[in-house]
């Protein structure tokens, strides 16, 4: 450390007082940084604008919420454009990412935020139902694997609802006064982890868990669960996740991760179930979209011939992505006929 020694000699020649005096304030000792004062998000306060109205989170809002911006600015297709340019670190990235112009931004800047906001209304219900729908998808494929006497393969799918989703929906379950069911999910997982030897007991526990998920879904009014506009948004959420998971299952043209193949199988299966429930309404109100969606869904479903993955994928990831995009496009037509 020869250099350092010379360096410190020079520094002492300069004199410590000079050094202290010229030190930039931000170089002050760490003790002077107050953690409590700085731990609140800096971005809050900046976006807490004076408007009392509920703001739209441009990172998280569903299309029907973004439509308020689209309507205000009268820019066709704006909602999709906002979604496609995510994520946003600041609201004015709507301008820097060339989603809208500065003049347009000035008109809506009080309406938008990037902060977490309490979801309300339809957006909240779509969010709730999608999470439970993902749980249901996991449970569907878990059941198939249990019936095939593959408890080791069923186990991750019984684990996923607790590990990946429950914490994210817990607040809403409490709010909606749905009885806690994490305990039964974990109890079931324990049984399956241990080899699911007592099949009668596994059956009983499985029924309890599935009924809990279904009960939580039934908390939403029946009219909503039959409303195509609502259900199609949930289906899109499920298919989008199925798309990513299917992609994460395939390497070198082989299905190398059965877990992700099975996840996506479960999500598509539940999307099919949900669609059945709105079929009469779709036939009546949007016959063209209905025709396109049912044929694409039938084709899509072929990618998952059985719970145990086929040796070679039936469909490439690109083919699956394309079908899911087609379905989304057609659902947009019937959600948002314009």
């Amino acid at each position, binding site marked *: *450390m020869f*250099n*350092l020694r*010379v*360096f410190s000699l*020079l*520094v002492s*020649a*300069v004199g410590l007082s*000079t*050094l202290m005096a*010229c030190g930039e304030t*931000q*170089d002050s*000792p*760490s003790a002077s*940084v107050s*953690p409590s004062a*700085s*731990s609140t*998000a*800096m*971005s809050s306060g900046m976006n807490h604008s004076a408007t009392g109205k509920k703001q739209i989170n441009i*990172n*998280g809002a569903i299309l029907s919420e973004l439509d308020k911006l689209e309507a205000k600015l009268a820019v066709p297709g704006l909602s999709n454009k906002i979604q496609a340019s*995510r*994520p*946003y*670190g600041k609201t004015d990235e709507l301008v820097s990412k060339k989603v809208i112009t500065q003049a347009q931004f000035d008109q809506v800047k009080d309406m938008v935020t*990037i902060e977490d906001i309490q979801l309300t209304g339809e957006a909240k219900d779509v969010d709730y139902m999608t*999470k439970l729908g*993902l749980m249901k998808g996991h449970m569907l494929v878990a059941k198939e694997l249990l019936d095939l006497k593959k408890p080791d393969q069923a186990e991750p799918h019984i*684990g*996923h609802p*607790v*590990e*990946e*989703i429950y*914490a*994210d929906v817990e607040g809403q379950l409490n709010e909606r006064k749905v009885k806690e069911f994490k305990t039964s999910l974990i109890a079931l997982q324990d049984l399956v982890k241990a080899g699911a030897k007592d099949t009668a007991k596994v059956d009983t526990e499985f029924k309890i868990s599935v009924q809990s998920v279904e009960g939580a879904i039934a908390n939403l009014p029946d009219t909503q669960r039959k409303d195509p506009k609502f259900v199609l948004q949930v289906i899109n*959420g499920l298919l*989008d*996740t199925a798309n*990513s*998971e299917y*992609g*994460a*299952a*395939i*390497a*070198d043209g082989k299905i*190398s*991760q059965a*877990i*992700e193949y099975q*996840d*996506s199988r479960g999500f598509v299966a539940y999307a099919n179930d949900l669609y059945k429930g709105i079929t009469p309404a779709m036939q009546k109100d949007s016959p063209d979209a209905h025709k396109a969606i049912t044929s694409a869904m039938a084709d899509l479903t072929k990618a998952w011939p059985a719970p145990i993955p086929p040796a070679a994928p039936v469909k490439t990831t690109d083919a699956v992505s394309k079908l899911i995009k087609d379905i989304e496009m057609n659902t947009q037509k019937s959600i948002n006929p314009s």
Partner: protein
Amino acid sequence: MSKSVEPEKLASSRRQILKWGLLAGVGGAGTLAAFSQLEKIKLRSSVTVLPSTHTGAISGQASTPLTMLRDFDYGTVTQEKGRTVREFRVEAQTSTIKLDNAHTFITWNLNGRVPGPTFRATEGDRIRVIFYNRAGHSHSLHFHGVHPAEMDGVKPIRNGKIMIYEFDAEPFGVQLYHCHVAPVTRHIGKGLYGMFIIDPKDLRPPADEMMLIMAGYDVNDDKKNELYAFNGLPHYYMHHPIAIQQNQLIRLYVLNMIEFDAAVTFHLHANMFKVNRAGRSPQPSEETDVITMGTAERHILEFSYRYPGKYMFHPHQDAIAEAGCMGLFDVVESTKT
């Protein structure tokens, strides 16, 4: 992903030297003398980073372990309310990497690389990480360090969702981040982890700095690792040794991110290294040539090589080393300039 790499720490030490140099004299010859003296010191203390022998891209990964080695991501820097804010944008993705001839592995990663970007900041900076999950499963980013509960990154972020993590960079030292969704062994094992270096405000002495993360790969989901690696690819630094200069101070930021095995050591051949535990001290303390590290444990190790030649580094759990966690330093003789 936008990214601006700040000039080396060195540059800012130099700025400080110049400033002090100018203050030292009141003008005239005195100042100039002090100035050139300092310049000379600066030159003599400058760090020689030797070029990599191999920078070719690897299929499925834009970065190689050699480019990642010294690739410190200082984020996009802005000033907000008089504070330095460093913004990092990361996207959880899935992609495949070829671990060896027999294994193509599906990773869950950030920005297409394993390990994820090495975030770097100075103590007291505001950190803002914009996390976009596009990887199917729920994921999260859990940072080590001090922050409020809401920013602890334990809550799963669903596919297609965005979470902005924001907190102060504290305390200084070597931190890490990783996904905290269960089973964490699988989420880390598939690649959702990286290093987060918080520099002290009083800069550490100039050195050739590098990041090394040890990790395991459970390629057949049997909850045991079959392959191991430094910075993502098994055996990579054996085939592409890390060139360093003789007598140059080397500063390694080392992290053990191996799941399933309780602990491993880090061992360096033909040398001793100084250990700065978790980088929490201004100076290293003890000296050794083997240090035990549990999962998620990390240290700064400092050393320099007296003799030119090739030297191995690896955990001294030799089965783990031979399964891919092994590399070489190539010490190049200093020129007489």
